[in-house]
């Protein structure tokens, strides 16, 4: 019984230490050092917020670069992250991947089958993956350029500029943030029209 009372009192003390003091220190730090002041960092286009920088969103139109397949809700539902959780030999899953390859080829008729990047037909872990590999962006350049009536070389240049290098050039992967690339694309095509 003595231990039980001590337990209650020490738990309350820990509540103050962790759930209040520790949280408060981090919250104050985030107000100054966090890119979104404690909230998710946002991306703007013409002064209007069009998305969260680190959260992928659904692109289906031919005038945009596309992200990876998503199993979060109905696709890129950022209030319900999720993955397929399919094992590597599961037949229905493999059939789905095949269907994705076919549909990717329909939208990119100029591609050969062996040029389709696997990451464009497999779902990400979170369903909110904001990135694609540079290779996955390059295969989409021709489609986007045609849909926008832009010069292919100009679009390719935007992709070149959007590549994020590995950490210190040494560690990790090369990647492209799809949303930021599409914002850059939109800006380029607007300035062209002017």
């Amino acid at each position: 019984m003595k231990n039980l009372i001590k337990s209650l009192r020490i738990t309350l003390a820990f509540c103050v230490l962790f759930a209040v003091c520790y949280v408060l220190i981090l919250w104050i730090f985030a107000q100054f050092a966090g890119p979104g002041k404690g909230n998710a960092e946002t991306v703007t286009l013409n002064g209007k917020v069009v998305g969260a920088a680190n959260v992928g969103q659904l692109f289906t139109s031919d005038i945009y670069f596309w992200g990876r397949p998503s199993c979060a809700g109905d696709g890129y539902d950022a209030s319900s992250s999720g993955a397929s959780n399919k094992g590597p030999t599961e037949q229905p899953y493999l059939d789905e991947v095949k269907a994705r390859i076919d549909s990717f080829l329909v939208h990119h008729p100029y591609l050969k089958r062996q040029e389709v990047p696997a990451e464009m037909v497999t779902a990400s872990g979170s369903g909110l993956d904001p990135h694609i590999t540079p290779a996955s962006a390059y295969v989409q350049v021709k489609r986007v350029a045609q849909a926008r009536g832009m010069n292919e070389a100009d679009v390719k240049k935007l992709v070149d500029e959007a590549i994020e290098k590995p950490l210190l050039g040494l560690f990790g992967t090369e990647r492209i943030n799809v949303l930021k690339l599409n914002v850059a694309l939109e800006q380029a095509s607007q300035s062209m029209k002017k």
Partner: protein
Amino acid sequence: MNTEVLGVIAQVVLMVVLSYPLGKYIAKVYKGTKVWSDFMRPVERLIYKVSGINPDEEMNWKQFLRALLVVNLFWFIWGMVLLVCQGVLPLNPDGNIGQTCHQAFNTCISFMVNCNLQHYSGESGLTYFTQLFVIMLFQFITAATGMAAMAGIMKALSEKTTKTIGNFWRYLVLSCTRILLPLSLIVGFILITQGTPMGFDGKMELTTMEGATQMVSQGPAAAIVPIKQLGTNGGGYFGINSSHPLENPTYLSNIAECVSILLIPMAMAFAFGFYIKRKKLGYSIFGVMLFAYLVGVCINVSQEMGGNPRIDAMGIAQENGAMEGKEIRLGSAATALWSVTTTVTSNGSVNGMHDSTMPLSGMIEMLNMQINTWFGGVGVGWMNYFTFLIMAVFISGLMVGRTPEFLCHKVEAREMKIASIVALLHPFIILVGTALAAYLYVHAPEFVASEGGWLNNSGFHGLGEMLYEYTSAAANNGSGFEGLGDNTWFWNYSTGLVLIFGRFIPIVGQVAIAGLLAQKKYIPESAGTLKTDTVTFGVMTFAVIFIVAALSFFPVQALSTLAEHFSL
């Protein structure tokens, strides 16, 4: 050289380099010698005063365990009440409702035992209040419980003959204020600069470029993620854990989080050597653990970077490895490293989906948890190794015809009985649980259907999903083959029980062994003493662990992961 592989090497090196000084520091903290963090002393004195604790009171091993068990019982009640009532408590901007009884039972136990098996999804199953006052609080204090138990064992083993093993409350508080709190703050600062949210606004409503509405869950994630990693807890803030781009936004945040998983477990192995002033023994234990860990890392990294042969067969370009269930910014190599790191410890956080990893990677993930001694959970992982040390001492003592002794105390029948029970309990609860589930799945299809059918994959992989769930529960790991539909009556209760057995029976047994050993007569070392800090003895311990722990699981592994691998 491939930058993904370089990233993996960098992370492993960073873990080892950082854990050495940390181990030294931890030994000093528990001993009570002077350290730089002594400025926390007034805070600790205040906590003792508020709680009515005398930190200088020495406890024997029974009193020590009683305090440990009672405080855990209290936390169970605390968690149950708050989880069921969370809908009407404050800090609930998204309007989430209270958990059902069986779900709260499972959630509460799994966080109380430092496991963090999650049968709910963070975005909708909890409120900001329960995230902080149950989940995060438990992540600190249950990690501290394991560390306190290990501190007691170290105290017992470091003395010649003693009845007392220190004060549980003091160790508990010191683990929190001197180790977990400062480290969590550092990791938290890093995560915030990388873009992990730390606020109390509700979901952010956005209009996407294509004009759709997107609701982005956020909240005080940067407070919970550091302790989730450091305390080998693993319960993610978001449903999909550290593969979520807000929970783990960049490669740098990934390094910070992945290194955090192994930092304290590695440091604990060093700390033991420093504490009992037998550095060589500490290094030899560390060496055996590191060897086993690196074998797993090599297998998983090569498996995942190699990609899925079934996808290769479709004739497309699979150049970045098996990317199903993985994120581009992390890559297949870093995800493979994490999958081994999180399973050798009892962490259980993931940055990619284990259900979608290659069969052999799945085997390593499960095997790590089934052995459960390579670094392991903070404190408790080392204690599991200690169980096998006792067995190895006993077996090798008999082999060379010497009385089995460990650290100058005789190992006798009573200690061996306890060690054997603890070592056999683990395969027992895993295999019985899996067998029961598999039996029901075949013979009671109506019951399984009424629970939503459970499995997301068929055949060998389906058995793997059930095996993984019990393995993860028994090892207090908390990761899962998440395809399993496990938020049901059967899974919540059955894994809840496995969780309790898997946590408390080993802790009680191990503290008892140390307490019993410490009471015995001190026998000074002589030429006839079996040396426990040699390479030979390290190999011997490895063999004992492999034979007792790993081979018990060979038949069931053959039926699930190995069978799937050979069918690729």
